[in-house]
């Protein structure tokens, strides 16, 4: 007996409906671990945070239902508004240069060539480094006698107190964050650029379009979906940024770097007002969702990817 015949004899004989049912059951079983994980580590904590945001809970005893009090309190809390403003400035200031620089670097790096391959690997190094380690490195760079002051000293500028001047500290964090995330954005944009159809560019060249015109009229519109992806993850990442401010400035000086996640953390774990902290988290989530939807609305379309 041939192998095929043997296999044919051992295969279960089920009708089409029965087979679909068996496949569905197998699929459900295979998906079960992921579903349980999602339920336990995402849905339940999220539902818990939503519930807590309507309560007064101080990490002891039982949460006490207070309705919308936490949300009303936010309107009247200068600490919250200061943090919201700092977060907005930090997000815009770190996302825009990250994407503009990322694109500027990705365009030449997307061209074929062995050197470009090496450069692409090098540019990804900061993104691969742990955030805590990079924050520590940057605290040394921004120190009084650190690299930042040495570099500006070369062009005759006086040393600056980067992390203790309330006018400079946020910008120091922006520089660090941009440096950290730039590599990842370059790689994503490079991949997007390499996926664009070459014949469109060849046709444009035949029609006499210069590189700048081709970039503005062809590359950018075709790259929309990649740009949308980068923009969404960049904005969400910036709005959730906690580690650099926590490690480099602790939110100071004078609240100049107290981003919303840091304020949320201090409210929850410093002041033990977990209900209020949950309400802040909900507002942050809604803001991120709204911004993401807005970005999808503005940048929808595009053919890349």
């Amino acid at each position, binding site marked *: 007996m041939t192998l095929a015949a043997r296999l044919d004899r051992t295969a279960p004989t089920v009708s089409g409906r029965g087979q679909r049912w068996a496949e569905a059951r197998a699929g459900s079983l295979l998906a079960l671990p992921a579903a349980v994980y999602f339920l336990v580590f995402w849905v339940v904590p999220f539902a818990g945070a939503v519930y807590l945001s309507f309560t007064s809970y101080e990490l002891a005893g039982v949460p006490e239902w207070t309705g919308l009090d936490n949300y009303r309190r936010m309107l009247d809390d200068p*600490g919250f508004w200061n943090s919201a403003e700092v977060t907005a400035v930090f997000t815009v200031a770190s996302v825009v240069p990250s994407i503009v620089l990322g694109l500027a670097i990705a365009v030449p790096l997307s061209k074929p060539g062995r050197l470009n391959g090496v450069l692409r690997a090098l540019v990804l190094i900061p993104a691969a480094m742990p955030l805590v380690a990079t924050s520590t490195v940057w*605290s040394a760079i921004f120190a009084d006698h650190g690299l930042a002051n040495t570099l500006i000293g070369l062009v005759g500028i006086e040393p600056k107190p*980067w992390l203790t001047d*309330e006018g400079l500290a946020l910008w120091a964090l922006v520089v660090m964050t941009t440096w950290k995330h730039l590599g990842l954005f370059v790689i994503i944009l490079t991949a997007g650029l390499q996926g664009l159809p070459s014949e469109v560019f060849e046709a444009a060249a035949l029609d006499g379009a210069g590189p700048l015109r081709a970039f503005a009229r062809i590359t950018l519109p075709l790259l929309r979906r990649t740009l949308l992806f980068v923009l969404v993850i960049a904005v969400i990442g910036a709005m959730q940024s906690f580690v650099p401010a926590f490690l480099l400035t602790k939110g100071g*000086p*004078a609240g100049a770097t107290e981003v919303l996640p840091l304020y949320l953390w201090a409210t929850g774990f410093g*002041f033990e007002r977990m209900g209020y902290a949950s309400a802040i988290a909900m507002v942050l989530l809604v803001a991120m969702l709204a911004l993401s939807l807005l970005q999808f609305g503005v940048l929808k379309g595009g053919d890349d990817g």
Partner: protein
Amino acid sequence: MTMMTRRRLLGAAALTTTAGLLAGCGSEPEATVPADGVPRGKLSVWLHQTKAYDAVFTSLLHSYLQEFGGVDVTPLYVPVDKLDAKLLTAFAGDAPPDLFKIGGWTVAGHARKGRLAPVIPKAMGVSDEKALVATYDQSAVSSLSYQGKLYGVPIDYTICCLYYRRDRFAEAGLDPDKPPTTWEEVAEYSKRLTSADGRKVGLQWILGNPQWTVMQLLALVRGKGGGILSADAGTATLATDAGIEALRYYGGLGNAKLSNPLSGFGLFATGEAAMVVSGLFAMDLFPALNKKLVFGRSFDIAPLPRWDGGRPVAPAYTWGWAVAEQSRLQYTAWHFIDYLQRADVAARQLMDASLLTPVKGWEKLPSTDTKAMEIMAAAAPHADFGPQTPVWQEMAKSLTDAADAVAFGKKTAEQAAADFDQAMRRAL
């Protein structure tokens, strides 16, 4: 694997789990005072790291274990700036250690939430709480009480004084043997000690640090006859003449933009700051930060200044030993604490680790820091532990925001004081 084997495996797992659960439920909490009065059990202890104290603690631990064979102790050393957060996480997760070092300023907050066990006087060899309190400095021990109950015994006590750089004073033509005695003089001296570019200053505050902001402002506000909170800690009282004047003075001294990872402490060690307000621990800290600093030659200490014609105020704080309400070994925990707090141990701790346990008569304990001890002893009657409120962390953060805003010129003293009072209205 056959079905039988699987069943056996599941059965074994279920049995193990049940046995574990039963074992957990079965461990009886220790009676408040065991009939035989003998401590026993396995204690977990959290304390913050200092090399000098570790040496004292470790030898005490060994001798205690030898003397009381039924006790085992597992210490965990936590960096000082992480201890509060680690304790809070442990309480929130229902897994606190049996006993731990705790900042006196956080006792009210934890006690209100039922996390701390009141002292068991019998475990500490005295008949009642009153007798126990009598063995300590009154003000230090009372800072570890909440609503009339004592939740800890004090260790690592300090009263703030003024540290100044003798070398900087001499450079500026000031007499290093005549440090300023009033806040007005401090401002005057600071003018002479400040360089034209502002990179060297006179007095530099410890900015951005809630605990030190409370102590620094406490001296200024209370000295003016005001307060940060009302006497019953029920309302904020910074937006008063005393509070606003204190904030204005605070914002007028030093250079907020001077940078050092250790804030004013670091700037004093480098010589950029000629004066700082600090505690006993700084006697060891400054020479550790800068090997060239020698006490009496390059730096010195003086009593904390007061306002001209004002009353003396000596901001103070203490750490304490406390026991978790959830501990099943409360008697043993307090018994071990009592062993750590004996008078002979207090003398050794002060000599070997510069750690002051405010036992009764601490002023006479022999110390290598004689001058600091004399200054602290003279200031002790005016020791002020600041507002004792369950929302201390929130109060201190809001006060730091207000003080820093004035120091950085972001707000006027009036605005900052009003913002503080408003923030406290929400918190209290």
